[in-house]
């Protein structure tokens, strides 16, 4: 808008100055030349003035506003990633473990997929837990000793887990990795 309006105004002014010049033919010729000389520097001056101050200031003011909202948006990302693993419901968890790290006495560089059960069991309350919570509230039972909710436990295991040891011997472990979990 700022760029379009000034040229229109200037053209109108020039047309107005042209009218009195038309009465004298010789003056008309000079007038035309004068108009051309006057028009060019005015146009340049106006354009230069408009370009300089207000636009630059506005752009500078806008730039920090644009940068600011992007900051917190980026920060939200890592916060969401830091969800607590303990708050997840009871279910299977996976770990890739070297056979030597199992602590079962085997020496091997191979890795096995170890699955175990972990998670919250707050939603699976039994009547036993209700009674226990009541007694805990009345301090008939120590809080640190008693858990008034079920535990996340494996209810089924993988049949076999096999690997080669350092001496190229084949070993098979049974019921090493969990297959199903439940609040028991």
């Amino acid at each position, binding site marked *: 808008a700022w760029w379009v309006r000034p040229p229109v105004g200037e053209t109108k002014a020039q047309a107005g100055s042209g009218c009195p010049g038309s009465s004298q033919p010789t003056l008309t010729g000079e007038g035309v030349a004068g108009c051309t000389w006057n028009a060019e520097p005015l146009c340049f001056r106006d354009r230069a003035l408009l370009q300089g101050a207000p636009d630059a200031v506005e752009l500078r003011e806008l730039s920090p506003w644009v940068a600011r909202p992007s900051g917190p948006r980026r920060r939200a990302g890592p916060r969401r990633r830091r969800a607590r*693993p*303990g708050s997840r419901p009871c279910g299977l*968890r996976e*770990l890739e*473990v070297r056979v030597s*790290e*199992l*602590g*079962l006495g085997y020496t091997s560089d191979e890795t096995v997929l*170890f699955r*175990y*059960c*972990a*998670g919250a069991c707050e939603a699976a309350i*039994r*009547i*036993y837990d*209700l*009674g*226990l919570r*009541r*007694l805990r509230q*009345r301090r*008939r*039972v*120590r809080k640190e*000793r*008693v*858990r008034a909710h*079920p*535990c*996340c*436990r*494996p209810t089924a*295991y993988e049949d076999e887990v096999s690997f080669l040891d350092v001496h190229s011997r084949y070993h098979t*472990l*049974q*019921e*090493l*990795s*969990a297959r199903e979990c439940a609040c*028991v």
Partner: protein
Amino acid sequence: WVLDLQEAPAADELSSGKMAETGRTWKPHQGNNNVRLPRALPGLCRLWSLTLPVAELGLGYASEEKIIFRYCAGSCPQEVRTQHSLVLARLRGQGRAHGRPCCQPTSYADVTFLDDHHHWQQLPQLSAAACGCGG
């Protein structure tokens, strides 16, 4: 008027009786609690029992009877039942696996009692029958 006068003292006697009973029953339970839960010795996971009135369970039953409530409590050292629990305890010790072993009932028992209306009430699986540590 004569009937009203006769009823009033009966109610007073009943209320006083209840107060006396509740007063008496509280102290022995505390004593039992102290004896069965020694502070000095942190016990391992096992079955504990409490004798208490039904009303104390807060399950909404009106009854003056007492029941035996059994529960599981105690610490759970590394369990060596299965290779799974052995490996899991090791990985938990290294901080690689979440969770912890917990002392929980492995079987339950029903509890039966008479309510104030002389009706038998049965609470299935209210009491623990056996305990175990499991990962």
